[in-house]
């Protein structure tokens, strides 16, 4: 089973907690990951997503010079690199966020998105299904084989049939 560390993105955009909202906007506008993680000595303390920005800055008119801590989501729900994908899915189902920083020894090492986890599970399942189908076919053949041969073999069995 794949783990979080196999599917995470490793170049996560980060900002120091002293940054301002406009710095976050610049990062968000020029980066594809859709969020920026706020770190303090490599430890993630908050996260700002595109959604937060649109909700709090664009439509409520917060000032771009205000510190980032005014709009960040904190504390952050994070995942461990060794976590299995279905454990991750349970967290996603309860928390309903889309982006999760990956943390090891209190250091930010990556980012996983809901999309990546769901896609990885779906691919995994496809492989799994193919293996299972092969196993089933072998099983059916085996049963058929036993059934056909049974009539012949039964004369040698001690209990009779």
């Amino acid at each position, binding site marked *: 089973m794949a783990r979080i560390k196999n599917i995470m993105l490793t170049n996560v955009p980060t900002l120091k907690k002293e940054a301002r909202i406009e710095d976050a906007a610049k990062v968000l506008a020029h980066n594809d990951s*859709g969020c920026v993680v706020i770190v303090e000595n490599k430890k993630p303390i908050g996260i700002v997503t595109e959604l937060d920005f649109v909700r709090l800055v664009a439509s409520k008119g917060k000032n771009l010079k205000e510190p980032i801590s005014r709009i960040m989501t904190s504390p952050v729900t994070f995942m461990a690199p060794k976590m299995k994908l279905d454990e991750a899915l349970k967290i996603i189902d309860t928390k309903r966020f889309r982006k999760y920083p990956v943390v090891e020894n209190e250091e930010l090492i990556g980012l996983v998105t809901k999309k990546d986890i769901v896609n990885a599970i779906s691919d995994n399942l496809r492989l799994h299904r193919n293996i299972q189908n092969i196993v089933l076919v072998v099983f*059916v053949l085996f049963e058929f084989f036993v059934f056909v041969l049974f009539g012949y073999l039964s004369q040698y069995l001690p209990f009779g049939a």
Partner: protein
Amino acid sequence: MIKMRSIMTKEVITTSLNSSIIEAAKLMTAKSVSSLVVVEKDVPVAVVSEKDIIYGIISKKAKVRDVMDKEFITISPMTKFAGLSRYLREKKIKRFPVVENKKLIGLITETDIVEATRDFTRFHQIVQEVILTIFGLATAFFLFYFSPIGAAIFSR
């Protein structure tokens, strides 16, 4: 196979070329959506995402027409799921207005696709478990029936 009609967002929030970015942002917040479709006489001409809005704010643009993304693909409601995942994974296009008879009838976003994949995966897992259970029980019965104990019980 899943058709787009069943997973698309039917209430598409639309905006016009000349509305302001702030209006668009307010609309997104009010309707809890992550993208708007820009329409001109009921025909989709572009899409606007959260990222476009952010870009518009820091570069001091005012109108939706200055930030909107004209590179999008319209799809028909009969498009199949597999056809779409290819666009999503390879071309990095994330929003697909659904058009039928030249009219906008829905929108597929990344979220819709992820949710559909999620549900489909769950459904598949259940089907797989059921098949395995039936086979397991059949095999167990089969082996038991032909075993000495089974022979005694069924008094063959």
